[in-house]
């Protein structure tokens, strides 16, 4: 399924990305290394509100590392050394005294669905509970809304009390999306979300993402170049830790770019 036009078409009056406003994420000279080996070198880019920002590139190009740095998950990984500045909403993320508050504003979807060892309901209610929502009616409302937005509600509404891990792979991934949405995040990071998901479910999730763009900003790391083409407003191409190309997705796919490595990757000559 190849879409001729690139990027998600605006839906129901979605005004699209706000390129005239200050960017929500500003990355300056970001270099990340594991021990001596640099995984990312001198990345400088901006991500604007209400855009779907695609990051493509082959394995080991630093895409996941980049995402992890954005919500300071590097602190989970003692060997990971982050240099440079990352600002979210104009504020250096290292100046957030409460890293948990930072993370709670960013929803993350991992490549393989990570269902917490809880029921479907509790998976989605986890983050609202952390925020201090205790009332059952309120939680019910959040759970239903998030599962509906993740296109999962109809399939699981009768089994909210069974373990999340008993769902199928595609359902589990939608559950993690519902869980990310339950944080009411400003930013949604997706890291190769469709690896373990069948094509039909992938398309359903992609539709969900297009709708979500009017509410939040999405950073989409993907190894499927056509997925970036279908969804992303702008796309960055990472290769072995370098930012090779960044631009409107259309330009990348219409070969209006300088670097021949980009066209080579997009056309499948290597990858």
């Amino acid at each position, binding site marked *: 399924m190849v879409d001729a036009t690139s990027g998600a078409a605006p839906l129901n009056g979605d005004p699209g990305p706000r390129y005239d406003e200050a960017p929500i994420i500003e990355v300056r000279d970001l270099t990340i290394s594991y021990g001596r080996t640099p995984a990312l070198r001198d990345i400088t880019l901006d991500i604007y509100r209400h855009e779907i920002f695609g990051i493509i590139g082959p394995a080991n190009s630093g895409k996941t590392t980049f995402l992890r740095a954005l919500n300071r998950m590097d602190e989970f990984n003692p060997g990971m050394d982050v240099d440079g500045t990352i600002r979210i909403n104009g504020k250096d993320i290292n100046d957030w005294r409460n890293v*948990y508050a930072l993370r709670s504003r960013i929803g993350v979807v*991992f490549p393989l669905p990570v269902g*917490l060892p809880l029921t479907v309901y509790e998976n989605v209610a*986890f*983050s609202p509970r952390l925020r201090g929502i205790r009332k059952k009616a309120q939680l019910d409302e959040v759970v239903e809304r998030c599962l509906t937005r993740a296109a999962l509600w109809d399939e699981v509404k009768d089994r909210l009390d069974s373990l999340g891990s008993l769902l199928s792979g595609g359902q589990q991934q939608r559950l*993690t999306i519902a869980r990310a949405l339950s944080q009411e995040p400003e930013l949604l990071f997706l890291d190769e979300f469709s690896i373990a998901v069948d094509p039909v479910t992938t398309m359903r999730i992609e539709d969900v993402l297009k709708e979500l763009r009017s509410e939040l900003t999405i950073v989409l790391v993907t190894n499927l170049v056509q997925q970036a083409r279908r969804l992303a407003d702008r796309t960055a191409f990472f290769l072995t830790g370098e930012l090779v190309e960044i631009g409107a997705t259309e330009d990348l796919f219409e070969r209006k770019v300088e670097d021949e490595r980009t066209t080579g990757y997009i056309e499948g000559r290597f990858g």
Partner: protein
Amino acid sequence: MAATAAAMDRRDLAWYTDRAARVLVFIGGISAVVFILGIFVFVTKEGLDFVFGALNLREFFTSIEWRPTSNNPTYGALALIVGTASVTGFAMLCSVPLSLGAALFIAEFATGKTRETLKILVEMLAAIPSVVWGFVGMSIMHPLIIRIFDVPLGLGVLNAGLILGLMAAPIMTTIAEDALKAVPDTYREAAEALGATRWEVILKVVIPASKNGLLAAVLLGVGRGFGETMAVLMASGHAINLPTSVFDSVRALTATIASELGDTVYGSDHYGALFTLGILLFLVTFVINLTADVVVRGIRKK
């Protein structure tokens, strides 16, 4: 084609090795069953004559008169049962929070050298022979308890319980730490990505995910407490008594068997009575393990 067919029929070295390995592993696998059954049959056989003969069940469970050597012997085991239960209970009260805390620290917070050093130290603690613990109870804790609490005797529930708690702590810590480490890091990352603090992650994700293993750790500790003999014999005071405070001396089931079995005549009522205590211990351990199993299965089904 013919050559291929012949090759398919030939049993080579790999085939025989595979067979031999399977048989050996099978023997290893069923040996546990054989030993358990063997112990059960033997203990029951030795005690059975007494159970169906001279034993008065009501006296056994309700009387504290354990006088197997008197002219008119009575076999009331209540004090012994209460003795074992109180010492084990007190030991668990001390060691469960301590062990789970230690396991949480080692598994979730300590890193690098701290972690390795702690693990080695905990394992060394597990290797101390029980008679050494008994010695600590008798010669260090005993005078210490007398001095601190101003009581006439320092051998009793408090002493034996503390010693037993310290003895059970390493195994509980090790098993609990294994259970915590078995929780995939992806759970921790996912929960942290949702904005949970380290403590919230532990409380709401890691502990629930490892509760089976943690329960197993506690039950192993309880089993250790029930079965421990030498240290309890030395630290409990070994007096037949229903304790009313933690300073009272008590006598444990295991210690009774250990101290009296050598003086009995084979096949006598006293001999049978001691084996009846053995059956009781065996049944209690069996019930504890069975309960654990049922609980664990119940959790899994959900």
